[in-house]
């Protein structure tokens, strides 16, 4: 039996403890590692322009992943974000031909909030599992978008300069989309830690019954949460269409699974009660860099997907191992 006070904690243990208390650090290390691998494979690729491009593509993904982070904290998920973002982008692009851009943007966010609200009412009031509720509503939204599309075929579409500036532009080498994203991320991160609403998300995800006994009306929180998630998805769609500049009927749909992956890689528990938005942002960056890395790898497409899958798994497994109790 050691009797002295534990002064000499082995360095390994100390490192582990440090990493566990700072779960962002290993994620960032990993991100840097991927960038280094990329630079080794394609010397010269990591330059100012590439970094700006990566950030531009990571931002819409990170905003969509914020929807997953917030809903996953309560033990839910939002599978409608891909189509909601697309709806917003498409509605904006078609409305802008007849309206002022600001009005078109406002109009385009309306369906996003409404879909979110419907998700929230289903999940919060009728207690439908969010997976099913958001899946069902994404089907409904897909159909609705197609119907809408028919009615506006003659109007054409356009991307307002302001959104193009936001999505694609750079000022002194810094992507303009950071103007929107930095405050947004700050609000989400602080909101989760320092507001009653943020605390309630964790509380509901951890133990809804306990929250209820403490006087929390969970359904209200859930309804607001999913409406917020819809709004965020709508914003992501607008930023994305500003970046891609081609409003299609499936614009952001391929981002759905990556948005879930970004939140999970970032350390948010899919069972609720644990996680945060900081990790999600790094997760989105990791995924974006990984996509580039696989693009520049000259291997068959099949092998590329296999690698993508295994790398996601390896990253999450490493993160779980580092952050869990030893």
């Amino acid at each position, binding site marked *: 039996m050691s009797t002295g006070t534990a002064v000499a904690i082995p360095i390994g243990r100390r490192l582990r403890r440090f990493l566990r208390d700072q779960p962002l650090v290993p994620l960032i290390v990993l991100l840097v590692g991927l960038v280094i691998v990329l630079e080794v494979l394609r010397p010269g690729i990591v330059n100012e322009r590439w970094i700006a491009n990566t950030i531009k593509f990571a931002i819409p993904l990170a905003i969509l992943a914020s929807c997953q982070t917030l809903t996953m904290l309560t033990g839910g998920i939002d599978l409608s974000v891909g189509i909601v973002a697309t709806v917003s982008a498409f509605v904006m692009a078609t409305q802008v031909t007849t309206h002022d851009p600001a009005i078109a943007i406002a109009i385009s966010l309306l369906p996003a909030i409404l879909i979110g609200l419907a998700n929230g009412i289903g999940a919060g009031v009728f207690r439908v599992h969010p997976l099913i509720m958001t899946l069902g509503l994404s089907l409904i939204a897909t159909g609705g978008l197609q119907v809408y599309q028919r009615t506006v075929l003659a109007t054409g579409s356009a991307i307002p300069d302001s959104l193009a500036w936001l999505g*694609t532009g750079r000022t002194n080498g810094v992507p303009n989309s950071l103007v929107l994203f930095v405050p947004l991320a700050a609000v989400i991160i602080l909101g989760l830690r320092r507001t009653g609403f943020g605390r309630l998300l964790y509380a509901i995800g951890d133990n809804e019954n306990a929250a209820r006994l403490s006087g929390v009306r969970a359904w209200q929180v859930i309804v607001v949460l999913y409406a917020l998630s819809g709004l965020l998805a709508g914003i992501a769609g607008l930023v*994305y269409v500003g970046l891609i500049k081609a409003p299609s009927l499936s614009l952001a749909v*391929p981002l759905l699974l990556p948005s879930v992956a970004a939140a999970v890689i970032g350390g948010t528990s899919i069972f609720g009660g644990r996680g945060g938005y900081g990790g999600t942002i790094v997760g989105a960056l990791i995924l974006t860099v990984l996509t580039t890395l696989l*693009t*520049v790898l000259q291997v068959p497409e099949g092998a590329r997907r296999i690698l993508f899958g295994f790398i996601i798994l390896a990253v999450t497994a490493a993160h779980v191992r580092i952050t869990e109790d030893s």
Partner: protein
Amino acid sequence: AQDGSYTIGVSNTVQGNGWREEMVCAIKAQALASGKVESLNIAHRNTDAAGQLEDIRNLIQAGVDAIVVNPANPEGINPAIKEATDAGIVVVAVDQAVTEQSAFVLSNNQEEYAYLGAKWLFEQLGGDGTVVYMRGAAGASADDDRDAGFKRALAEFPGIKVAHEVFTGWQQDQGKQQILDYIATGIPFDGVWTSGIDNVIVDAFVESDVPLVPIVGADNAGFVGQLNSVEGLVGAAVTNPGSIGGAGVTLAVRILDGETPGSRTVLVDPELWENVTADGRAKLAAAADPSLDPEWPVSISVPEWTNYSKAQIIACAGPGE
């Protein structure tokens, strides 16, 4: 059935893509314009060959007179086509061929599509240089056919090398990120061949402030507009009309009327419009149509096969709507 009262079923397995949406609108417009179609019965969703089997069988149950189908792949839906033709239903496959002999085929020649564009590009480069090869969706048979055409052209130009081959999945956003990444590597290349994800590629060059290289795309309204207007852009659009669906309706109606064509297969060969020669520029200028959705092919009709007006296809209304 007597004149003017045909019911035509439609089966399509990709939803939410401009080309396919145009195809469906062409089908509706042609059905209306023909005056011989009483109603359309459209099964239109994202699914695979097995799902298309289901849709075709449902259409058989619904008692349609003819089925216009854009097949998920050339072989997978043969059993249902056979069942339909056995039941006396006329089946017309559009866009892609099917191997079932009892069906009529009115298809875009995908191999030729790729060959034509690639050959033009390689000639443009003087038979020497490197190109970025931006394919469609991995595992799709149309992509495979186009690959065959591209490889055929490549074989004819030993001086051309493929610097980079990627699958865009026919997604605008993926294509844009991929080309931006590649531009960022700084590795020089001389041309880009795309499988129809084209206007975002031009955007990427413009936004990155790098010199444009020759780009081959499809006749999508957005890209055609760029070929006409973007300073310094050299490129070509290869036609791949979505309006082939309307042609399919015409063929089906003709067969129902008793005018069975001599050959069961009609391949619609693509055209190439480039902006290098005056002739090509004239064609492009004539084809350009800024009022169309950028994802829609500008060839909104197939000469001799369709007789609807532009207003009709944009209205996208079928009989009884």
